[in-house]
């Protein structure tokens, strides 16, 4: 992954150009997440809102390249932007052509948000512990009941992808459905968060939401590809993007120091340079992980390594940056303070560092990653 293909390098340059707009609006959206509604004309927001197709070959690498640059502008505003986002990847992998058309038509008419409702209170994202229930009804439709937590953009989404357990299914018998959030039984409200406030992370209550049979994702696929198989593929595709968000936050903090502290000396300079090298190294790992998923969607071990690595880096980079500005840096440098708060949020997206380490160990233990090359 020495150099990006020409079209991705061009896209990366464009995204870098858009990032300045995001940085300029970052603190405003941090104060008032709904301010994003006045920013639909920004090129970055428009790109995210209109990028309706996600699962093409090479898509994961493309996404990490763009996401890192936009998050380097502002991760909160990037996550606040309308568009297919994580639900789009899910629909592209598990949706039938009709479901994809329905999903895209909901987003094509006007900028609209989607959300990805997986995590549950007290149970986290563990598939085996999920209690949200999908119950068949006599007319062939389904009824959805349960509660979800920590769902980005939940309160403003018009379409939701919701994970639930089919009534009578075994421990891993989880499926995903598309929900029109205007339907009766859906309620969502934002939760206060320390950082990434633009993302409007929220709580969802599902009280007898009716789901037509045609909105159950994966029903057109062979049985072996409907449930966990597809869900794992989706998570593998998404994980490098979370690493890219973390890289973007780290890069933003690093840029901030470079722009404002030109005379770093001694230990400060050494720490600054070390963060720069860590960003470069984690970027290489993240891009390699994305390319691995694009080549083989079931290969998510490198993505776990990249995600865990980049999230630690984001926290370290923002703290080192604050340390370069002395006492009261968090007061006198509100943007840097925001980066430090945002950096904590990526840890909880798409599996914590502990979960990624356990996944990575599983790959090591089973010989799926870290094998000796044949020379």
């Amino acid at each position, binding site marked *: 992954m020495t150099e990006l293909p020409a079209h991705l390098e061009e896209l990366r340059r464009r995204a870098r150009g858009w990032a300045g707009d995001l940085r300029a609006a970052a603190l405003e959206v941090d104060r008032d997440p709904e301010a994003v509604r006045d920013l639909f004309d920004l090129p970055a927001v428009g790109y995210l809102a209109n990028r309706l197709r996600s699962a093409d070959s090479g898509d994961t690498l493309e996404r990490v390249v763009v996401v890192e640059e936009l998050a380097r502008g502002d991760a909160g505003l990037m996550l606040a932007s309308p568009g297919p986002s994580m639900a789009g990847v899910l629909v592209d992998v598990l949706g039938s052509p009709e479901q994809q058309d329905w999903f895209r038509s909901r987003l094509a008419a006007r900028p609209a948000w989607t959300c990805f409702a997986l995590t549950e209170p007290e149970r986290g994202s563990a598939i085996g512990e999920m209690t949200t229930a999908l119950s068949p009804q006599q007319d062939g439709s389904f009824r959805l009941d349960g509660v979800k937590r920590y769902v980005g953009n939940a309160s403003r989404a018009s379409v939701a992808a919701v994970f639930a357990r089919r009534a009578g299914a075994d421990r891993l018998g989880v499926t995903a459905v598309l929900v029109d959030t205007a339907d009766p039984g859906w309620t969502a409200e934002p939760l206060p968060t320390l950082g990434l406030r633009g993302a409007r992370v929220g709580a969802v209550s599902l009280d007898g939401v009716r789901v037509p049979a045609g909105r159950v994702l994966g029903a057109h696929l062979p049985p072996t590809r409907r449930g966990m198989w597809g869900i794992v593929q989706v998570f593998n595709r998404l994980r490098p993007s979370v690493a890219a968000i973390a890289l973007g936050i780290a890069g933003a903090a690093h840029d901030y120091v*470079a722009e404002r502290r030109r005379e770093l000396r001694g230990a400060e*300079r050494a720490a600054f*340079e070390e963060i720069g090298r860590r960003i470069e190294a984690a970027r290489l*790992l993240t891009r390699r992980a994305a390319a691995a998923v694009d080549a083989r969607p079931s290969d998510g071990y490198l993505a776990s390594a990249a995600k865990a690595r980049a999230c630690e880096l984001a926290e370290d980079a923002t703290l080192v940056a604050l340390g370069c500005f002395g006492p009261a840096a968090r007061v006198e440098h509100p943007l840097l303070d925001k980066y430090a708060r945002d950096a904590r949020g990526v840890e909880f997206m798409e599996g914590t560092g502990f979960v990624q*380490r356990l996944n990575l160990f599983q790959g*090591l233990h089973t010989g799926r990653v870290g094998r*000796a090359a044949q020379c």
Partner: protein
Amino acid sequence: MTATVEAAARCGQECRATARRDGVVPALHRLNAVLSPDAPPRGASGHALVPVDAAPLPGGGGATAPGLALSAPDPDAQAGVGRASAHWRLGLAWVRLGASEGLRDLVLVRLGERHTEGAPLLMKQLVKGALADVLTEHLEAECVLGEAGTERHGTGRHEAAWDEAGRLGRVHDRITRADRALLRLLGAQGFTLPGPGWEAHLSELLADVYRERRVVVSPEEA
């Protein structure tokens, strides 16, 4: 003799595999044979570490093991005479990565065999986490070394951006830390000679002698 980029890259991978399978000394023999056939190269301070198949072990009462012999510093080397080439220095980093991966393989086997409270030590979550962290270090080092091979000797487009002392030096530091983490998992087994602790020690010595001097870069230049 100047190795081609492809030959150097191939040598790096072969030496990595040799170090992983057989240890540091056989891999260093191979690296020298391909990329410094006339004489063992010297580091920035003029010292050289020469692979030997029977080095005396410290406090070993005459016991020997494959090791490294230190050559007295050559003043000319500080002016560049006989210094390790960039290809060789990169190859050395591959050797150290391979040796560290070999140590990781050993830990997987040993901790899989040891049991506590009815389960292999390997399956304890703290052990899993520590091994996952080491694997991440190795994967990242592999990415950086792969990139270094193409940047340093490729089209020349990135030549100015390549800060070997900083970037390769960081890879060496991370490999050392990975080795130390793996040795801790082996307990006192990693502290007695010969054995995995000795191999990691040799690897650290090589990093020390062949490290390039740091060139400080200011933020605006970075």
